[in-house]
């Protein structure tokens, strides 16, 4: 039993990894939002040609494994443009670009599910395209997208563990160190799993709460 007690001294070390994981997740989600929302608006309201170009972006980032994307950007693409980014920054950017592709699909679906009568009504009272999108479509679409967005949080949280492959000091990388240092595996990895489990379900719980609080009474959420 003594060797299991020795694991307790590593708890602060692993807890620090939560901050790294949090910056990967929040950074990735944030960049993904900044990429994904304009992408969705352009795909929904832009022309066909633009749509095709943007679809290629989405297709590339959704069809390539995260590990391959991380390696491609870390060892090949960023260096060839002359950036020397550390693993953390590379990971946040890659997670963000990838999440942008997924989030654009989420927002596109929610924009599509806003009742068409709303758009007609906005046009009827003389709103410009810009006003229509900003004041009529987006406030509804963003609310509708919260459940899918909370799912995206869960996905990116679990994907952040893959950044261990570049040596980012997030939870899993640290647990691997602990495992090597102590020669134990079952309990450290179980601990990591439970930590991710708790982070996943507490995060989606918060999103559920936000979803309920921001609901417009009587608004019909379209088929999703």
């Amino acid at each position: 039993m003594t060797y299991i007690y020795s694991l307790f001294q590593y708890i602060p070390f692993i807890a620090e990894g939560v901050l790294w994981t949090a910056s990967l997740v929040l950074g990735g989600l944030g960049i993904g939002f900044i990429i994904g929302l304009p992408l969705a608006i352009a795909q929904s309201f832009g022309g066909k040609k633009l749509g095709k170009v943007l679809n290629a972006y989405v297709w590339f980032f959704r069809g390539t494994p995260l590990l391959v994307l991380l390696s491609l950007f870390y060892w090949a693409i960023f260096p060839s443009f002359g950036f020397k980014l550390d693993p953390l920054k590379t990971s946040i950017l890659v997670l963000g670009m990838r999440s942008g592709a997924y989030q654009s699909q989420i927002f596109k679906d929610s924009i599509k599910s806003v009742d068409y009568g709303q758009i007609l009504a906005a046009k009827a009272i003389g709103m410009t395209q810009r006003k229509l999108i900003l004041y009529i479509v987006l406030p509804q679409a963003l609310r509708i997208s919260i459940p899918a967005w909370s799912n995206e949080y869960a996905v990116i949280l679990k994907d952040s563990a893959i950044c261990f492959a570049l040596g980012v000091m997030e939870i899993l990388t640290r647990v691997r160190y602990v495992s090597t240092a102590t020669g134990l595996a079952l309990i450290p990895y179980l601990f990591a799993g439970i930590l991710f489990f708790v982070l996943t379900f507490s995060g989606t719980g918060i999103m559920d709460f936000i979803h309920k609080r921001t609901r417009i009474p009587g608004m019909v959420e379209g088929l999703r």
Partner: protein
Amino acid sequence: MEFWSEYLSSLLMGFLTTSELVAISAPLGIILGIALGASRVYGGIILGSFARGFSALFRGFPLIVTLFLVFFGLPEIGIYLPPVTSAILSFSLCSGAYISEYVRGAIMSIDQGQSLAAKAIGMTKLQEVLYIILPQAIRRAIYGISNEIVYMIQYSSLAFAIGVQEMYSVARTYNSLYFKSLEIFSLLAVIYLVLTALTTLFFKGLIRKLEIPSKAE
């Protein structure tokens, strides 16, 4: 030239390993997913909550953590699995957990009348589930299942972390030997993109083939 012929032949070996991982894990994951999904609806309190807990657990754990648990953790309680077996087990557990969500949702969405009609013609509960509910539910779940299989192809690259010589692992080895990162990883990305596209196409064909004529979804 030497680099390319070597890299391509190693990549082909890696491709075979990746295919092996997916070809075995995918059916196992689908069967597990259907069994878990059906248990969550029909399993009663004990089996139902076991299936719920099981699927929540493996949806909450990142796949890579499951992989490390199986490969590095299980030997501590006397279960030794070789890398490929560990990978297959982890992939099946993970995708089974996700697929069970789709199957459960699909079962719940089947019209109540179908179940009543099955009872009316004297079917037992087992017959009803096997011959009436599941054939319809699986058709509805298949789109979600196909997504999971596409994810499985992508996430099979994680097996590199426990020493399985699949495609990503080959690329990583070559990356450390030659200064050709761009060529190495963009080729790999193209291969995965093609695999993803082919799988999506395959499932689209399958969905069309399985469609019940004139049935309104």
